[in-house]
């Protein structure tokens, strides 16, 4: 998808970190429906598509470096992750599912965290984290917390493989609302010689609009509290563009089925290759994006009005980068975050490093 258009997605597995394997590593991990993003204390940002399916890959890789599909086992079931036609992630139980678990483990492996013990903060969409009255959905939060702590073992296909594939273990896991993570990223500023709170940003009324894969989250923070009346989630995101383009392609070319990876490529490149011939599908992609933008615009106006009382409206999430030209003029006081796709993951890491208490309790 174009969701990460402004980011470099790591294609190659990172070397394992050569240091004390007993040392705990802090990780901010935004396990989105389209991409899973990892932020590490050394400044690295890693992203992998949230793409996996049940079952073994059925591929023997002659050279380790060429390997593009990786297998993981959890609760007695093997999953293939990587360059596969992924199962849909757009279902409510995804955050606590085995599918999510293997994708997260794969992202951690890609980040070079094989064999490491981790303290981690992840997120839930705002509407999955809070009830309408602002109370936390404790059961859903606990389910997510526990879900990612279940064991996922990398499956080493070849005995002769030179790659070490040890699972990354999660010793501490906290869950926070996704768009609010971007607020922490916004107000906590790391410098070369320390970290500081930006007091202007801290006290100003700010709205975060997080355009993701499946959902678009809204969070308004004022006087260091969430304004629940203006916060929530809309079940629309960049994956809707992909679904719409898939339908349009099936209609135009009279196809019954088309692989998920081919559709993703068509959305990214505006070209579809069928029977060895390229077809221009830019009009379909444009129409699908326009439909999404119109829906998002209406919801944004409904949630935030004209934004007159807000100091700033901060757009984050991969969708904000992919749709930057379409959303550029919604508010005069708006900003698109730097590396917008990673704003939540960065905020989760900062929350772990400077806000939450993980030293006394490993939960």
């Amino acid at each position: 998808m174009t969701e990460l258009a402004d980011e470099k997605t790591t294609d190659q597995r990172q070397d394992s970190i050569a240091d004390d394997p007993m040392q705990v590593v802090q990780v901010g991990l935004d396990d989105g429906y389209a991409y899973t993003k990892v932020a590490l204390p050394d400044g690295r940002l890693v992203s992998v598509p949230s793409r996996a399916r049940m079952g073994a890959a059925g591929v023997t890789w002659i050279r380790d470096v060429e390997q593009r599909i990786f297998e993981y086992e959890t609760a007695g079931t093997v999953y293939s992750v990587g360059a596969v036609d992924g199962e849909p992630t757009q279902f409510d139980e995804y955050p606590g599912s085995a599918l999510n678990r293997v994708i997260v483990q794969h992202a951690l492996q890609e980040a070079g965290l094989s064999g490491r013990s981790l303290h981690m903060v992840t997120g839930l969409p705002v509407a999955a984290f809070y009830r309408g009255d602002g109370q936390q959905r404790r059961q859903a939060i606990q389910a997510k917390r526990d879900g990612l702590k279940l064991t996922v073992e990398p499956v080493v296909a070849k005995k002769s493989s030179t790659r070490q594939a040890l699972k990354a273990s999660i010793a501490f896991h906290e869950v926070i609302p996704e768009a609010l993570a971007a607020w922490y990223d916004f107000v906590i500023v790391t410098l070369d010689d320390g970290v500081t709170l930006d007091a202007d940003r801290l006290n100003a009324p700010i709205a975060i609009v997080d355009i993701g894969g499946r959902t678009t989250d809204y969070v308004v923070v004022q006087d260091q509290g969430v304004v629940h009346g203006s916060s929530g989630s809309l079940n629309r995101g960049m994956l809707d563009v992909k679904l719409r383009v898939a339908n349009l392609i099936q209609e135009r070319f009279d196809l019954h089925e088309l692989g998920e990876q081919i559709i993703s490529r068509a959305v990214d490149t505006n070209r579809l290759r069928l029977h060895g011939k390229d077809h221009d599908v830019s009009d379909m992609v444009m129409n699908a994006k326009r439909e999404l933008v119109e829906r998002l615009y209406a919801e944004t106006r409904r949630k935030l009005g004209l934004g007159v009382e807000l100091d700033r409206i901060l757009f984050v999430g991969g969708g904000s980068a992919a749709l930057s030209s379409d959303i550029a003029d919604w508010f005069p006081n708006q900003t698109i975050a730097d590396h917008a796709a990673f704003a939540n993951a960065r905020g989760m890491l900062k929350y772990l490093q400077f806000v939450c208490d993980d030293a006394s309790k490993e939960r």
Partner: protein
Amino acid sequence: MASTTLQQISVSLDTRIPLEAMVLQRLRRLPKDRQNDWLRQLVVTAFQSECHVIKSEQRQPAFSNSMRKSSTTSYMYSGHCSPVAKQQRTEAVAGPPNCPKRTELSNPFPVNKAHKPFTHLRRVIGE
């Protein structure tokens, strides 16, 4: 009712002044039905920022202009970055040209086990 609450103002922009020309250019790019909204927000936001400046001038009369312009810092914490780590970072960047490509740090992911400086921000999430 609308005629009494809605007041129309007229502003002339000079295309010879670059910033004003940019405002006009931006306005013309917008769909007609959103132009009025956009202009109204522009005026209100500009006024808000003017209010902020006035407020901060009242709060900090002794500060110099340059101080006023800079973002306020309420808390500074440097515990997470030890002198050793800083030294290691410097070595990693400024090593001799013939040094190994990858500088091995003792731990690239130091975990801060000291007191977390912004624990009070936990309450933003609520109960």
